Structure formats: structure tokens, C-alpha cells
């Protein structure tokens, strides 16, 4: 590969090409079901398939500190079997895997920092879809959480964690997260110890507390109309307890700003040193969202044409990739600058990267850079929504963050009206180059401790 893919983590795609003719907006339909579930639908009729994403406020930010990983394994373990219910027999993990393969469909769960997500992809042939929805509803509501399978999965995940911890990139990323987030749940990492503290009763309790129709945000994209989607979502959620209204979940604290800069140089025997520089960034609801999106595109979010890549890779040949990104969520996600380089030249690369950030925060972008960023973001808007999969990601983000239903229609206008001064001010508000953490793993010791 010539270069790494664009780092657009946390950047919500959207908006319609202001100058492009004949691009009719696909309308997002939204309604609330009696169960309390919110449904968001985009009808996309050309392919006989449908994608559904069901999301709950049950991400890892709700993990207990001593049981980090709980949200993630509660979601993933739903694939390991369903219990008997009514006239339907229990299915173990293998029967469940076979049943999905027999339908040519797929369903599974995972958790990010904020959201616990379940995704269904099926053909819309009515006979297959009916069975797929039934099976998904069972897996969503009636996971059996078998203790022996959890014990095995815990071992496998723990072994994979130990393996990952032998890699310099993992060691660096974990040290960076800890330095940026401190004790905030965004900084939790599943460990062998935290997984050992999780029992199947914890999985059941976490599932019961979060997976309820009244908490569900359901996004649907595909070959279904509104009536079909409504029925489909009702059936998906029908086996969950119907509480109508849910009790509020406890608040999660905000991420604290860094008080002082920190340098953590970890010795490591590797062919490359891994470098992370950063600090807490901003929340998805931040009014500076669009200026920061444009701002980071220029700094380190645009692949080979970013300032960072230009200075570190193109002009000096120091790294294969050098990038930056914000990861906004319910709370401030990290601003992360990353690069990997030969151990003896890490200090040089770090100095260059820091200088790029400091200079950018102090002076802001040039008019030329502003134009280039807007040209790409506005011109490339259609590429953010040109498949059902990409549309689903956007619709789910609109649902999750409560963005306006016309968010995609106004996205390019929002980018268009961002001014150079707004970018400079927003970056300066969010980034303090003199208070960032710098983590290096595997840098030559004589030069890294600076």
C-alpha cells in the first residue's frame, strides 16, 4: 500500500454536495414505537438486502473500573447461544452459527466507548428475512451466556491481550490512553485481571440493565418501506422486556483536562519506535465540531496531503504514516498524533511533529489550505454515503447523537461556512501544545528522553 487509509475516526460523514446537481437527498424517516424505541429509516430499494443497527447506551464508558471489558463481552457473548423460549429450543453457539449461515445472513454485537451495537444484514426475500428477524430477536433478548463458553472465551481473549502486549504499538497505545484519560472510563483497558473478575452473572446483569426497547436507537437502511421497517423493528425488539419508559442511567463524569505535559519513554526492543502525542479533545456536541473537522483535515487527517504527513514523511522520509485525529463522543475523545519510525530517528520525528502542531495552533491554516480542505470535504461528500453500509453508519450517528434529520442535507453548507478564523480559534481552544503527553515505545534511549 502506498499509504495508510484516511484517518477519519470520529468524524461524522454527511451533508449534500452543494454544487452537485441532481443529487436528491435520501430522506431519513424517524418515529417512536410504543416500546419507546426510536426508529430511523432510509429506504434504499435497488439491492434486495437490508442492514439494521440497534444501539444502546451500554458502551465501555459504563464498565465498572474493576471489570473493564464487560460491555464488549456482554455484546459479543450473545453469539454464543440462546436459551429455550416458548416452543423454540435452545441453540448452542454452533447451532446459532449454522443457523445464520443457512440464512445467508449475519447478526452480532459489539461495544465501543459509548454504544453497545447489534448489527443485522439479511437478504429481503420475505421467507429468509422473517427467519433472520426471529433469530436476531432471540439472540438479542435471550442469550444463554453459558458459563463454560465464557470461561473459554475469557481465556482466549486474555491470551490475545498478552500477545498484543508483546507488540510495541499496543504498549504505546495503552500508555497513551492512560496518560490522556487518567481514571475516566474512556481510559479503561480490558486486562487479564479485569476479565477474570467478570462472571456470567455480570454479563446477564449488564445486558438486562442496558438492552431494553425503551433505550434502543434503531437504524434501518435497505429494501424495506416504512410499514415493513416498523414491523421488522417491533419483531426484533418484541422478546425484550417491554417497560415503556426506562429509568435514567447514572451520569458518567467528563474527561479532565491535562494539568501538565508528560513524557513517557518506554524502552522496547523493536525495529520501529511507536510515537503518540496528544491530549483530551472535544465532545461530539461541541459547537466547534465543523471548524475542528476542517482544522484536523489540514493538520493530519488528509493522508499524504496533510501538514504532518508532508513534514514527517514526504519531506524527510522518516515514517510510513504520520497522522492526527480527534475522536469525539459522548465525552471528549483523545486528540491523537501518531507515527512510527526507526528508533534512532524518533527524537527527530517527535520534534518535527511537535513543531508542526505548535505552529498550526499558533498561526492556523493558510487560505490556500482552507480552500483545499473545503474542496475535498465538500466535493467528496457523496463518497461518504454511496453504499448502504456507509449510509447506515451516518444514520446511526444521527440517531445516537440526536442530530437533526436534515443533517446530511446541510453538511456541505456547514463545511462551506467555516472560516479560517474559526478554525484557528477552535484549534487554539482545544489544543495546548505545551501540555500534551508524548509516549514513545522503542525509541533509542539516548535521544528519546527529552
Amino acid at each position, binding site marked *: *500500500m*502506498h499509504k495508510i*487509509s484516511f484517518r477519519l475516526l470520529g468524524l461524522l460523514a454527511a451533508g449534500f*454536495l452543494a454544487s*452537485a446537481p*441532481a443529487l436528491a437527498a435520501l430522506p431519513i424517516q424517524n418515529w417512536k414505537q410504543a416500546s419507546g424505541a426510536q426508529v430511523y429509516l432510509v429506504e434504499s430499494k*435497488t*439491492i*434486495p*438486502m437490508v442492514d439494521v443497527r440497534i444501539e444502546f447506551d451500554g458502551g465501555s464508558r459504563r464498565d465498572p473500573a474493576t471489570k473493564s471489558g464487560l460491555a464488549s463481552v456482554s455484546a459479543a457473548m450473545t453469539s454464543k447461544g440462546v436459551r429455550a423460549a416458548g416452543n423454540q429450543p435452545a441453540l448452542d*453457539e454452533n*447451532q*446459532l*452459527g*449454522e443457523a*445464520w*449461515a*443457512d*440464512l*445467508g445472513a449475519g447478526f452480532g454485537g459489539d461495544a465501543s466507548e459509548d454504544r453497545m451495537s447489534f448489527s443485522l444484514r439479511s*437478504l429481503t426475500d420475505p421467507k429468509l428475512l422473517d427467519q433472520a428477524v426471529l433469530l436476531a430477536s432471540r439472540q438479542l433478548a435471550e442469550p444463554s451466556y453459558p458459563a*463454560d463458553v465464557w470461561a*473459554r472465551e475469557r*481465556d482466549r481473549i486474555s*491470551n490475545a491481550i*498478552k*500477545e498484543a*502486549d*508483546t507488540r510495541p*504499538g499496543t504498549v504505546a497505545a495503552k500508555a497513551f490512553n492512560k496518560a490522556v484519560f487518567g481514571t475516566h472510563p474512556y481510559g479503561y483497558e480490558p486486562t487479564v485481571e479485569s476479565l477474570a473478575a467478570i462472571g456470567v452473572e455480570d454479563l446477564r446483569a449488564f445486558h438486562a440493565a442496558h438492552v431494553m426497547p425503551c433505550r434502543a436507537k434503531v437504524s434501518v437502511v435497505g429494501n424495506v418501506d416504512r410499514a415493513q421497517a416498523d414491523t421488522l423493528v417491533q419483531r426484533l425488539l418484541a422478546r425484550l422486556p417491554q417497560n415503556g419508559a426506562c429509568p435514567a442511567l447514572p451520569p458518567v463524569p467528563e474527561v479532565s483536562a491535562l494539568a501538565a505535559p508528560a513524557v513517557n519513554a518506554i*524502552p522496547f*526492543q523493536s*525495529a*520501529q*519506535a511507536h510515537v503518540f502525542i496528544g491530549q483530551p479533545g472535544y465532545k461530539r456536541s461541541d459547537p466547534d465540531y465543523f471548524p475542528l473537522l476542517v482544522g484536523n483535515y489540514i493538520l493530519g487527517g488528509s493522508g*499524504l*496531503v496533510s501538514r504532518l504527513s508532508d513534514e514527517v*514523511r*514526504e*519531506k524527510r*522520509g*522518516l515514517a*510510513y504514516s504520520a497522522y492526527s485525529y480527534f475522536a469525539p463522543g459522548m465525552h471528549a475523545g483523545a486528540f491523537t498524533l501518531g507515527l512510527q519510525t*526507526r*528508533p*534512532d530517528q524518533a527524537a527527530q520525528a517527535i520534534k518535527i511533529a511537535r513543531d508542526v502542531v505548535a505552529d498550526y495552533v499558533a498561526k492556523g491554516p493558510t487560505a490556500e489550505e482552507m480552500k483545499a480542505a473545503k474542496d*475535498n*470535504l*465538500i*466535493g*467528496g*461528500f*457523496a*463518497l461518504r*454515503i*454511496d*453504499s*448502504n*453500509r456507509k449510509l447506515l453508519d451516518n444514520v446511526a450517528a444521527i440517531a445516537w447523537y440526536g442530530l437533526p434529520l436534515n443533517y446530511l442535507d446541510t453538511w456541505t453548507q456547514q463545511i462551506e461556512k467555516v472560516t479560517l478564523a474559526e478554525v484557528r480559534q477552535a484549534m487554539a481552544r482545544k489544543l495546548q501544545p505545551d501540555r500534551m503527553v508524548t509516549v514513545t515505545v522503542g525509541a533509542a*534511549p539516548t535521544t528519546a528522553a527529552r
Partner: protein
Amino acid sequence: MKHPLRLAVAATFAALLCTGVPVRAQTPAPAAAPTVIKTASGALVHRYQLANGMTLIVKPDHRAPTAAHMVWVRVGGMDEVDGYSGLAHALEHMLFKGTDKLGVGEFSKRVAAMGGRENAFTTRDYTGYYQQIPSQRLEDVMALEADRFQHNKWSDDEFKREIEVVKEERRWRVEDNPRSALYEVISGVTYLASPYRRPVVGWMNDLDAMKPDDLREFYKRWYVPGNAAVVVAGDVDPQKVFQLAQKHYGSIPARAAPARKPQVEPAQAGIRRVEHKAPAEQSYVALSFKVPQLRSFDASPEADDAVALTVLSAVLDGYAGARLDRGLTQGPDRVADGAGSDNGLWGRGPQLFTLDGIPAPGKTTEQVEAALRGEVARIAREGVSEAELQRVKTQWIAGQVYKQDSVFNQANELGRLWAQELPLDAGDRIIDRLKGVTAAQVQAVAAKYFGDDQLTIGVLRPLPRDPNARPRAKPTGVRD
């Protein structure tokens, strides 16, 4: 809209006229009749041949106003020779470094200004360049891509910087990645004569020794119209794309692609074992069996076996709860933390059927190896059920529908098929062939190809990492 190269193209025509090139050189060629292939989903794929030998493949899909534009060159790691490994990949990097008219970095900037995304990739079999763009910018990226296909140019100094980037890529992909490093070693002993034995990214020593002119010569030799294809999928009209392709790519002078020598791997006669030690927590084992590849859809015993081997792999590892999962990774005495299988099926060079696994704690790679072979042996002995057979077929058929969701993936599949000299409807035809595979055929291939004689076993032996060790010494020959 910028048309950076339009003037330049006009200037070239003027120059040709002055030197007395026959007028017919500027006369548009008669509209070539495309070969049109109807795919199973009803979509049409149009294939044209430009007068200079370049292939054009167009697949319209009007769901969104975007397009994927790719140039495929039938050259990859397998076209390199000893001492010059990594040329195809390093050259791919240099294609971003300018032309007669574009400075360093300009290519990427112009694509970005169009709202585009771009990248490139190199494998053993081919090199590909792509842009994803709003469809109305198709001509602009075609102009850029046609320009660098024939006028790529950069200084020795630019090369010196970029080859350091490639070395960082090698460190990242291989040297700090124990399983990648193991596969590099496995390839080195699986193949004796086939160029598949060399890593695509190149040996570090070959990168150290690479000269700018090595790349320039490789470029001249392989980047010729007859060795390349343009693939466009998305919101486009095929006839219009053909006209644009004639205008931008059709003016590239025809040159003969170099003759290729057959580099046939001699038959293996005996098991090969290799170990690689690297800092890691988990050991790992991979078993690679030499198997026939699918070269065409004409009926032949080799083709039938290649298809049946693909079904075998899916029965072993095609879904959660398939045989390797059940047999190796479950239960209190499970032998593995993970296990997988893969059949190469097709490619320009010899293909492998690979089984791999990560031993569970307390288990050995030898136990995993025996368990993996045991699952195949069981199929050879007992066969597979109709339910298993039907299951993997259902999955593939559904997958054909899901594939339509990504325009980029559609272009990518067409390009890969072209590069491997397969028919453009191979995606559908392979499904038809897979549907016809019987349980008896699966059982037969399980019995036929999994002996010792065509087997290479590679094992990763973990080394403890000394947390206080100093970094490795600087490689020789690197610049400061």
C-alpha cells in the same frame, strides 16, 4: 473544474503533426464494439480494447453520483528477480512523485481537490492505483492517471527519501510483525523456483541496494498499454467512458509488453519444515499444501479440484461453528485459541491450501498441526454432509448480493480478474461451479492433496522480549 493536462495533450498532437505522423493517428478510432457481459445481478460489464492494446472495463451502477477509477498493471512481485526484490512496490510509491508536468505531491493534492480519495497497492501478481471520486470528475482523474502512467518522473534525491519510507513500511509490516515474518520465511522454502518466494515489499538488503535507475527501467519495461487495464465502476455511461479513455489513455504509444518466461515451481517431493523465532507470547503454526489452481473455466480435473478445495475450506472454516471451530477451539481440552483455513484458488502463480492455528496454553504447535490434519483426514474418511454443503453454497450466493453494495469492491474484483487473466464474469461463473460441487468431490480432494509430499510447515517459536534491551543496531547503509 480543472483540466490540468488538456493543453498538454493538445500540444502533443501538434508535435505529432509537425513530425509527419500519418493523419490517421489523430482520427478517432471507430467506436470499438464492447464485449458486454451480463452478470447474475443483471448489471452489465462492458469491456473494450483500445487501439494501443490497453483494456477498458466499465460497470455502471447509478445508485450514487460517485465512481471508482482504477488502473491495473499486470506486474507485481512475481516479475522481479533476485537482488531486485521490492521493485514493483517501490515503483508504486514513486508514481506519486511527479511527472513532466506535475511536481512532487501534486497528484495527491489534485485528487484531494476533486473531493477524491486515492491510494495504491502492490501484490505478487499486480499493481493497482485507484481514485474514488464524484463521478463528474472522472475525466480529471483519467487525465492525471494517464499522465503518470507514461510520464512518471522524479529526482534521485526524491527516491532517496521515499525508499526510506518503504523501509519503514517493511519494518512495520514484517520486522515487527512475527506472523508476517514467519510467512516470509515460509514462502522462501515453499517455493524454490517460483518468484513467489520473494517478499513483495522486498528484502531489506535489496531496498538498501536499490538504485533510482532500477525503478526507472522497471517502469519503462512494464508500464506499457498492453500490460494494463483501466476499470471504472459507478455512475457513468460506458460509451462516454470509452470516449474519455480513448482520449486520455488511447494516445499512449503502443509498446510491446516484455515476454514472460515460465517460472514453474518444480514438484515438491517431501515435507519441508521451517521455524522462525521472534518476540511473541503465543506460538503459531501454518501448514501450506501445494494444490492446483483455477486458470480457466474449461473443464479439467485440475479446475474441478481447485473448486472442490474451495468448498472444502469453507466447510472447515466458512462460518462460526464450522469444523475447525468445533474440532480445535472448543471444549475443556481444546487444542487451539484460533484455527483457520484458506484455499488460494486462483492467481498468476502456484496456489496453496493453508491451514493455521494458535495453540491454546499448554498445547504445542505439533498438537495443533495434528488436529488440523485430523479434521481434513476425517473428511477424507467420512465425507461431508449435504447440510454443510448447502450451507456454504447459501452463504456464497447471499454474498453475491451483498457485494453489490460497494462500487469500489466491484471495480476491485473486475481488475483483479483481469490481472489474473480470468474472464470478467468469473465471479458468477465460480458460484455456478461451486454450486455444482458434490460431497464426493470434497471428500476426494481431502484425500488427494493433504499428504506430506507437497507440504510446508512453518512454526513461530516465541522468544521472550527483554524489556530493557536496547533497540537493535542501526541497519547498515541507511542514511542519517
